[in-house]
């Protein structure tokens, strides 16, 4: 398990002022007899470019129709049941309401039952993140829970029923507010210890380890999430903008392929200043400006020029 420090607050989020969307769930967090009314907001924004399917010939938007395989006729959603396949083509049929029953109590409560070290939950368990805002008359208890979690460096664990499903969640202090993470269960994760990783016939030499250590240190930088942006999304949006202006999109260039020498030689050459992905720049921390779109093999310069949307 890794030990983790407190999050660096200033690096969190892009800070693009779009405002917080409406809450997706309202309820109460409890610890002991203390009740904290909260509102749940998604902390993550889906920014991928979404398209509609259209009929190429007339541009009409394609509709998905539910059709009965036997009758070939459209089936309204009301008449849809859920089938769990037990044998090939043999189903246990459940009404949609019966699946809802599995969610358990339709609770508006998140009871924090256990508290653990906030850094002790390995990040592989973190699934989705939500921010918690204060609910009605809840300002003081909200601040109290936040400050206590922060001061104790703890995260509270509880169960959350959301969209007819019960989740394990961790609540912690993050960037001045409370954040809630859905947590992956242990049995959903592959244990690294169960992987049968083949080992080499002889261990890397001390010199190799030392050189590799130096190489790692030479590429050491502070984490700056703002330095990375989704180049693919930007290119798709640029393509759309070009087409919207009635222009033809420009063709892209092929990257160069570089052959790599053997391990020790590669380490030496890397430390001597060569780097496949930063040819000519040599040692030292990657510079801020370049670590985002710019740090690319020379042949990919066409992509490197993609406009930054920061």
């Amino acid at each position, binding site marked *: 398990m890794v*030990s*983790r420090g407190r*999050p*660096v607050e200033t690096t969190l*989020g892009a800070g693009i*002022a779009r405002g*917080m969307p409406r809450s997706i769930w309202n309820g*109460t967090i409890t610890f*002991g*007899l*203390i009740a904290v009314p909260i509102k749940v907001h998604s*902390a*993550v924004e889906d*920014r991928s470019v979404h398209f*509609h399917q*259209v*009929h190429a010939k*007339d541009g009409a*938007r394609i509709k998905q129709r539910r059709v*009965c395989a*036997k009758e070939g006729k459209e089936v309204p959603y009301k008449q849809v049941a859920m*089938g769990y396949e037990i044998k090939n083509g043999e189903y*246990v*049929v*459940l009404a949609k309401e*019966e699946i809802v*029953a599995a969610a358990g*109590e339709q609770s508006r*409560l998140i009871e924090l039952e256990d*508290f653990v070290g906030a850094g002790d*939950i390995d*990040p592989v368990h973190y699934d989705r993140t939500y*921010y918690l805002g*204060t609910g009605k008359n*809840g300002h003081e208890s909200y601040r109290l829970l*936040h400050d206590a979690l922060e001061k104790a460096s*703890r995260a509270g*664990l509880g169960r959350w029923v959301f969209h007819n499903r019960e989740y394990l969640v961790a609540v912690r202090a*993050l960037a*001045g*507010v409370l954040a809630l993470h859905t947590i992956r*269960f242990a*049995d959903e*994760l592959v244990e690294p*210890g169960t992987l049968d990783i083949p080992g080499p016939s002889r261990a*890397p030499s001390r010199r190799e380890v030392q050189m590799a250590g130096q*190489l*790692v240190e030479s590429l*050491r930088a502070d984490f700056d999430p703002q330095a*990375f942006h*989704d180049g693919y999304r930007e*290119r*798709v949006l640029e*393509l759309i903008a070009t*087409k919207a202006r009635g222009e033809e999109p420009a063709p892209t260039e092929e990257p160069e392929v570089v052959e790599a020498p053997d391990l020790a030689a*590669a380490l030496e050459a890397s*430390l001597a200043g060569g780097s496949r*992905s930063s040819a000519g720049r040599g040692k030292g921390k*990657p510079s801020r400006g370049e*670590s985002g779109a710019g740090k690319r093999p020379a042949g990919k310069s066409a992509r490197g020029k993609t406009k930054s949307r920061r």
Partner: protein
Amino acid sequence: MARPLWTGSLSFGLVNVPVMLVTAVKDLDLHFRQLHEKDGSPIESQRWCPEDDAEVPYEEITRSYECADGTEVMISDLELEAVEPRRTRTIDIEQFVDLAEVDPIYFDHPYFLLPASADDGATRAYKLLTEVMGQTDRAALGRFVMRAKEYLAIARVRDGALTLTTMLFADEVRTAKDVDGATQKSHRPTSKQLNAAIAVIEELSCEWDSEKYKDRYRARLRSVVQRKRKGQTVMAPDAVKQPSPVPDLMAALEQTLAEMSDGPEGNGSSKRARQEAR
């Protein structure tokens, strides 16, 4: 071992480590198929053109983007392919960072990177990288292309295995500044309240043990399916559970602490044991 989702090499400087990517997450969800209630036959999805009032074969479908002003721009497969990232088969490590600096909010989907083959070259390079990264608790940041999408990823060592997690981009994470986090001075707890709240938290504290928490939803859903299979009825969910109103904050804190220290029945650990037994 799971089928590799991607094979290529992890490169830092001029060193290449031949690796394959396998998933670190098992899908244990129960999957259902939509059926027509009346006759139990499977529901199929049909692409339908409302203009023609007819089914449309896949080849006749293209995509369109709706601009903010409502105009539609049609984009063909070829045009989209042209801007897709090249399948470079490399994860270029751009920098090494301290793992503690990267808040888990950026973590998306976990995978493992394993040596692509059992030959000595691949396994030695892999061993070298995991040893060096493990010693320093460094994580590697890099990008790679999988299924025509470019990912930012973080790789770190757990139990001698490289764990790679795809990451969210900064602009996909909302800023916490817009959240109503009760930050006014008047909302601040008194030190007495804060100390009492920390005492409650410490009383309920334990070591993180991932095995302790089970997916009760999955278990219940499985039992619902079992009961249905035997022809039994399934109960509707219980009524909505609401918290009972509590007195003021300090009274709630004091009452909680009093109950916790009130004999063996009332202490924190046995309370948890009772809750688990439910």
